[in-house]
Every structure is written in structure tokens, then in C-alpha cells.
């Protein structure tokens, strides 16, 4: 491997599988993700999209295969904080307000937030809902609160499981815009979704998971 590719490629995946009861959930996957790249993971229900993302996030053990982070074999200590995962369960406390939830996330991340929680919420169109307990927000609004974490925390790689679910058309364009800005700033993202994301944007690449 040359030094040059190592400096650009954020995440490299070699023949990765995940084993559930000794059976692979998806066929071995090999791909690499460079800075500024957006990847759309496509596949039918149950084809292992979420599992793939959870393995990459470090929530599940790698079955077989290797992961490289910035050219080196992936150590969770190195990548912690650089990989941001937002799954189906949003990780929001229903009893806390949107602003408090974001503050907790920033505190957990341990770094100086890139912007104020209220500003991140404004960006996602939640002005006026900052101090509303998340319990009282709609599903789409909750999703937006969770996505506001993306703006708040400086992470290179975003792993988003169905970020468009529950979002209206405005929200969808919003997510596309955020992803675009992230990629332009040298970040990368892996996104699972059933509907094609912004196809006009040349940055999108497609990975297909067969069942």
C-alpha cells in the first residue's frame, strides 16, 4: 500500500463478513471509503445493511475479514470519536429536551462542539423546539434532533442507518445538503436507505448487499 492512498482512504474493508450462529449475514464485502465520498448501501429488508453498519461502528464483532482505518488495522481506540453512528434507535432520552440531549452527546464525545446545540437545532429546522422534551416531538422531529448530532460533533466518518426515514421532503433535502457539506469538508459517510439519495450529486457511490 502506498503512503498516498493511506492518507486519503479513511476506511478500507477487506472481505468483511459478520457471522450470526456461524452463518454469514452478508456476502464478504470489500470496499474503501475515501475522504469526500458518500456511499449508499442498498439492499432488500434483511440483507444485512444495519448489521454491516453496526460492525463498522464497532457494536458488533467482525466475523471474518479486516478493517483498516486511515491505512492501519482498525483499533477502536484510534477511531473512537471519529466515527459517528446513528441507528434506528436514535439514542435520545425522551425526558430530556432537544437541547439537553445534544449537550449530553457533546459531553460524551468529549470534544468542543463544532457549534452551539441551539444553532445545530436551528440548522435542522427545529427553531422553537429546543426546550421541548423529546417525548413530545414527532418521529420526524426526533430524527432531526438525532441528526443534529452530526453537526455538533466533529467526526470524519458518518454511519447513518436510514437517515431519511420519517423525514418529510424538506428534511430529506436538508440531510442531503448536510451530507454534501460534510463530504466537501473531507468527511465520508455510509448511508443505508431504500430510496435513492440525491442522484445528481456525483459523489454518491453504491454498494449492493445481496441476501
Amino acid at each position: 500500500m502506498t503512503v498516498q492512498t493511506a492518507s486519503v482512504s479513511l476506511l478500507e474493508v477487506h472481505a468483511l463478513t459478520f457471522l450470526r450462529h456461524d452463518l454469514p449475514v452478508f456476502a464478504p464485502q470489500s470496499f474503501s471509503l475515501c475522504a469526500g465520498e458518500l456511499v449508499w448501501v442498498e439492499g432488500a429488508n434483511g440483507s444485512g445493511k444495519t448489521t454491516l453498519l453496526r460492525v463498522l461502528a464497532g457494536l458488533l464483532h467482525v466475523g471474518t475479514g479486516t478493517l483498516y482505518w486511515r491505512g492501519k488495522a482498525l483499533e477502536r481506540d484510534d477511531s473512537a470519536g471519529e466515527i459517528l453512528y446513528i441507528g434506528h434507535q436514535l439514542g435520545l432520552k425522551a425526558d430530556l429536551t432537544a437541547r439537553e440531549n445534544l449537550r449530553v452527546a457533546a459531553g460524551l464525545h468529549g470534544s468542543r462542539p463544532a457549534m452551539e446545540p441551539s444553532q445545530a437545532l436551528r440548522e435542522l429546522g427545529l427553531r422553537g423546539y429546543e426546550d421541548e422534551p423529546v417525548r413530545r416531538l414527532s418521529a420526524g422531529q426526533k430524527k432531526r434532533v438525532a441528526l443534529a448530532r452530526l453537526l455538533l460533533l466533529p467526526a470524519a466518518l458518518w454511519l447513518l442507518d436510514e437517515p431519511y426515514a420519517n423525514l418529510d421532503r424538506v428534511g430529506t433535502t436538508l440531510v442531503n445538503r448536510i451530507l454534501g457539506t460534510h463530504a466537501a469538508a473531507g468527511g465520508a459517510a455510509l448511508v443505508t436507505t431504500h430510496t435513492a439519495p440525491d442522484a445528481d450529486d456525483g459523489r454518491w457511490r453504491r454498494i449492493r448487499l445481496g441476501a
Partner: protein
Amino acid sequence: MLRRELLLAWRRRGDIAMPVLYAVLVTVLFPFALGPEDTLLQRIAGGIVLVTVLLAMLLTLDAMFTSDIEDGSLEQLVLSPQPLALLLGMKILAHWLTSALPLIVIAPLLAAMLHLPGPVIPVLLLALLLATPLLSLLGAILVALTAGTRRSGMLLALMLLPLCMPAVIFAAGAVAAAQQGLPWLAPISWLAAILVLAIAFAPLACAGALRIALDA
């Protein structure tokens, strides 16, 4: 993290009062069941208060991680760059502050209801101060272990009660010794020693158990 937990607990103030009420009611039951004899109640008062407080805590343990697992907060905790054991330690501390501390505050009242002599009450409180965090820590490990299973409440009680036997023995030993005017420092020191061990290792064990629970 500690702030978050305490804030969450504050949002559900009602839940804090539950175990306290439970402990009061259980303690009130004893004089009814055994008859209001001073000497008998005095003899068993220490034990009753101890066991009642432990059982009341058991009620609250179950919920320690369930909500975090359900709403995905636990995933975010595991993925955060902070050491998981430390975060869980904070969670356990918050649990102790919100569930055990109120119980300890009313313990003198409970003890007085059962005619426990005044000079013994400080010993009882000391024993509780050492025994309850132990229960929080041991309980947290078991809650983490049973996190993946549904309806783990009963299983949890069955596993935890034998484990907290030593705590009960030493705590009750201290109270009984104080009641008879004997030195009570030895059992208290034992309790403290076990607690120190638990503080050091329980968060690590918890972190390991929760990682396994998620990895399925």
C-alpha cells in the same frame, strides 16, 4: 454523565418516592404481623430495616439500563470515546444517589418506628451507607448480564439476593454488636473492604457484560 442521570431522575421525581414508600409500608407491616411488643421489635429492628432497604433497592435496579437499551442511548455510550467503565460507574453512582440515599435518609425513621435504641442508629446508618453502594454495584453487573433477556426482573432478584448475603451478614452483625454494646468496627471494616473491591471492579465487569449484551 452524572448530570444527565440526575437530571433524568429529577424529571421522574415520582419514581424516587416509590421505593421509599415501599420501605415505609413494609416496615409498618412488621409490628402488625408480630405484635407491638417492644422487646421483640427492638431485637429484630436492625435486621428488618436492613432487609427492607435492600429489597426496596432491588425494585429500582431493574430499570438501570433498560431505558438506555430501548432508546439506543447505550449504543452511543459504547461508541463514545470515553471509557465505558467510567461512564457506567457514573451511572451506578447516580443510581445510588437517587435510590439508596433517600432510603438511608428515612432509615432512622424506620428504625425509630421499631424502637431501635437511639445510640445504635448511627451504626445502622453506617452499615447502610456501606451496604447499599455494594448492592448498587453488584446489581449493576447482574442487570448488565441480564440486559439482553426479557422480563429479567425476577431472574435478577434470584441472582442478586445470594450475592448480597455477605453484605447483609456483616451489616446485621455490626448492628447486633452495637445493640449488645460490643465493638462493631470489625464487620463494618469488612463491608468497607468488599465495597472498595466492588468499586474497583464492578464498572469494568459491567462494561464487559453490556458489550456482550449488545453484540448479538
